């Protein structure tokens, strides 16, 4: 148990259950690298002729700096070569080989933040640095599933995860979803009647702002799913990159967008980690949607004995995320913004995403009534539409023809197929409302309506392209100010 998690353990908190019987055999037999044990030898006066590490005198970087925007104002953070800056290590240390856990300053912030955000209910949890959730999914799955095994997933799921499973020859078993995500009774039934060659040991899900359905599990739903996982002794891989982009329901009567003050008051739905009394949740967090995607930085929260496995997996692959990135993030979060500034940044994002969601939902309701049904997302960036193709619904070519018609009309959304485990039960489109200019929401949905109408047959299928709205010249890009005001 790391010193920091020892400090945060509350009196009387239980330790995680030992779930190592769920590891695949190769993981059960595991030993820490003897090489690393040698390298970790701590005698103070030791002269280290062992490490194949370059001397920092050969690193040509003397300083790293970044301009950071906070509430519309710019500030600078920097990292110096040989001295720590605030709590963050020196550039020489960040640029050197380090172990597979992540830089101390980076992990320390994330430990503190995870404690505040989730208050884990068992004592011996810890965090480890990751390169983002896609890599973490593959690593987490590899602890519990080997070739030929099965893993429970939501019936619609993140294609990156599904591809990863395919390449690892781990077979997804779909559990049905409703507007709140995984249906606990379906999960229970699936597990109870399982007759596969190897047992079900793990479940992968995206409980908040789910990709692709946009569904967010309520607290009750999470408790019910956790109870089923306990009953069937499953590990839960909680992939939660949209967790901190929660914004709650649409304002009553389609009123004004929530202000940042109102957003600040809104509690977040508790995570599965926060309900985890057994230590069966492996939580995957990422900076991709809350700082920037190509930082390639995130973290995993799990029981300490599982983190030892992740460390070994890291050390035989990525080692750890880029030291420059960890240094910049640590300097930003530890020293520039602190927990308060970080929470403020998250509230700013939530407010901006809420405004986009409000506008998008309003326009979907306006233009797609009778053509599509959807659940209002309360988190994240996805709106998942079930398309009613009317008389064409039974036609197996209807969906490809719809996509084609959409392209002709000048709009693109993701079709349901790449997300579906098994045949797609209907016609679905996933719209992402985070990136496109909000000025283009209405034209996009008008074009979609036309394309759907064409396929439904209310407009002739081979009508000339003039039937579609004239492509509208994009207006000067509208900036959605990150501080929430439009």
């Amino acid at each position, binding site marked *: 148990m790391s010193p920091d998690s020892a400090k945060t353990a509350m009196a009387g908190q239980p330790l995680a259950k030992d779930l190592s019987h769920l590891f695949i055999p190769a993981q059960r037999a*595991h030993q820490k*690298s003897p*090489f690393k044990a*040698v390298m970790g*030898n701590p*005698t103070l006066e*030791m002269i*280290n002729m*062992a*490490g194949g*590490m*370059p*001397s920092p*005198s*050969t690193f*040509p*970087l*003397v300083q*790293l700096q*970044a*301009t*950071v*925007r906070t509430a519309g104002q*710019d500030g600078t953070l920097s990292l110096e070569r040989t001295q720590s800056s605030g709590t963050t290590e020196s550039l020489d240390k960040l*640029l*050197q*080989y380090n172990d597979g856990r992540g830089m101390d300053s980076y992990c320390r912030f994330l430990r503190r933040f995870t404690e505040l955000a989730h208050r884990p209910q068992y004592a011996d949890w810890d965090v480890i640095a990751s*390169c983002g959730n*896609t*890599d973490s999914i593959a690593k987490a799955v590899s602890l519990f599933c080997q070739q030929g095994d099965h893993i429970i997933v939501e019936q619609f799921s993140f294609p990156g995860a599904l*591809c*990863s499973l*395919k*390449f690892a*020859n781990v077979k997804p078993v779909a559990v049905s979803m409703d507007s709140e995500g995984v249906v606990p009774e379906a999960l229970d039934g699936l597990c109870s009647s399982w007759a596969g060659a190897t047992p079900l040991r793990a479940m992968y899900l995206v409980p908040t702002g789910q990709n692709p359905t946009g569904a967010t599990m309520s607290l009750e739903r999470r408790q019910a799913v956790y109870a089923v996982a306990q009953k069937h002794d499953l590990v839960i891989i909680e992939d939660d990159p949209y967790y901190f982009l929660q914004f709650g329901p649409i304002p009553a009567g389609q009123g004004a967008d929530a202000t940042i003050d109102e957003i600040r008051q809104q509690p977040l739905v508790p995570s599965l980690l926060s309900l985890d009394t057994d230590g069966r949740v492996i939580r995957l967090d990422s900076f991709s949607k809350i700082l920037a*995607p*190509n*930082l*390639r*930085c995130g973290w995993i929260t799990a029981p300490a004995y599982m983190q030892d496995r992740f460390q070994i997996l890291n050390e035989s*692959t*990525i*080692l750890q*995320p*880029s*030291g*420059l990135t960890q240094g910049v993030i640590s300097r*930003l979060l530890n020293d520039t913004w602190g927990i308060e500034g970080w929470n403020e940044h998250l509230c700013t994002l939530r407010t*901006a995403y809420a405004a986009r969601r409000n506008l998008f939902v309003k326009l979907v309701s306006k233009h797609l009534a009778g053509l599509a049904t959807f659940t209002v997302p309360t988190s994240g960036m996805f709106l998942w539409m079930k398309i009613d193709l009317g008389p064409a619904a039974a036609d197996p070519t209807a969906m490809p023809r719809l996509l084609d018609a959409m392209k002709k009309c000048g709009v*693109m959304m*993701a079709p349901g*197929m*790449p997300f579906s485990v098994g045949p797609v039960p209907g016609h679905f489109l996933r719209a*992402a409302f*985070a*990136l*496109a200019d909000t000025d283009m929401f209405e034209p*996009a949905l008008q074009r979609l309506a036309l394309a759907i109408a064409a396929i439904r047959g209310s407009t002739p299928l081979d009508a000339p392209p003039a039937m579609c709205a004239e*492509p509208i010249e*994009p207006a000067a890009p509208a900036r959605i100010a990150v501080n929430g005001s439009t």
Partner: protein
Amino acid sequence: MPTKPHSQDFSGFFTEAARVRDNSPLKSLTKYMNADPTLVSLGAGLPHPDTYPFAQVGAAVAPAGKSIASCSSAELLDVSVTPAASNSIESLSKFLQYGNGRGVPSYSRFAQEHTERVHSPPYADWDVVVSLGNTDAFVKALMLFCDRGDTLIVDEWTYPAIIGTVVPMGIRMAPVRMDSQGMVPEALDQLCAEWSDSAHPLRMAYMIPTAQNPTGATMSLDRKHAIYAVAQRRGLVIIEDDPYYYLQFEAYRPRSEIGDLEERYANLPGISSLVPSLLSIDVDGRVIRLDSFSKVLAPGLRCGWVTAPKYITDKIQFHNETSIQQPAGVSQAIVSKLMNEQWGHDGWERHLVQIQREYAVRRDRFVDLCLQHLKGKVDFTIPDAGMFLWFRVLLNSDMQNKPGAMQEVFDSMIANHVLLVPGYMFSPQGASPEVRDKPYIRAAFSYASMDDFEVAITRLARALEPFTSQVA
């Protein structure tokens, strides 16, 4: 100029996992998104760059070829990536947004240009794909051709991370004897000739041809030709793991023989006089070359690249897309800006010469001291490159046949406050008692300060004394 031949097709040897690796269905939608500017795309789950709180990222970097110790702050280059794209590099938001498994184009392009300059691969359809460094690249290359139950050919002493990765995957290792130049071609050929597991034919060999970890051996060009010929004869794909490639210098000369120090280091190879790589003689397209910035810029950047036939780099791209995606945008941004706009290819070469000088100076001093203090205690081949010295401990007659002798040697080193790595940790044959007693230890002269060299070596001498001195 005659066109180069197309690579041979080794995809028949792909594992099942390699076969099914394909373009992510969502990423393949992006071509529609970019094709038509009037098309409104709500297809990609990308956050808006306005939400990124970074307005600029930059580094102060030494001018090409100058060590940081020798330059003043006025000379430092400002390597800054801003919201505005330039002629040669993308905007900051492009470096920070999702991309694909090929990395940000300007970074990748530099790697490609550099590879052409240094290696000029002799087949037409070679390509580069980004990596997070050679350990991750190795796993991705390995998984194309080796699956549970298969065997990877390796040097008899090799990089511990390879051993630690391969074993849990259920992949075995077949070690091949080495000499002072690395893997012995006749031994490789013999291994293949005698291989009897027809269910798991040998397909892949892994080697570190320059300043090998741990032995420090560097293959001559003749040796590389001989190894390549065996690979051709036996149908092998080669992983050329080459992180020390640029750390080549000249043969050692004792300090006493060196007159002028400047003159001593006047002929460092740069990039024009390096021992040619296996990639540069790879007429078939059977070499997967792993390059890394770890030893030539800094390990913490976590970036490098892989060179191979395009049908192989495509597979690695797809694997990247279901794992790490690409190297950190901040690392790519700084490296790309530095290489493309400030150092350029010529500046990069000047930097490499300066790194070579640093390592040459270290090698010379370290070897001077070893020859002075360790005579009769160890045997070693003087390395022409890299950072490792591989000592064979000259155990006396009592210790030679004593089980556990090397553990005593190691304990003695610790007691004398000097840390080297026991040889058994580099053995693919695992840590059996027999392997543990092989009398080898590895020293690295890259990291300790040069002032500490003499202290370290005298401590080592003291530590070895009881085990190497002849019994009266």
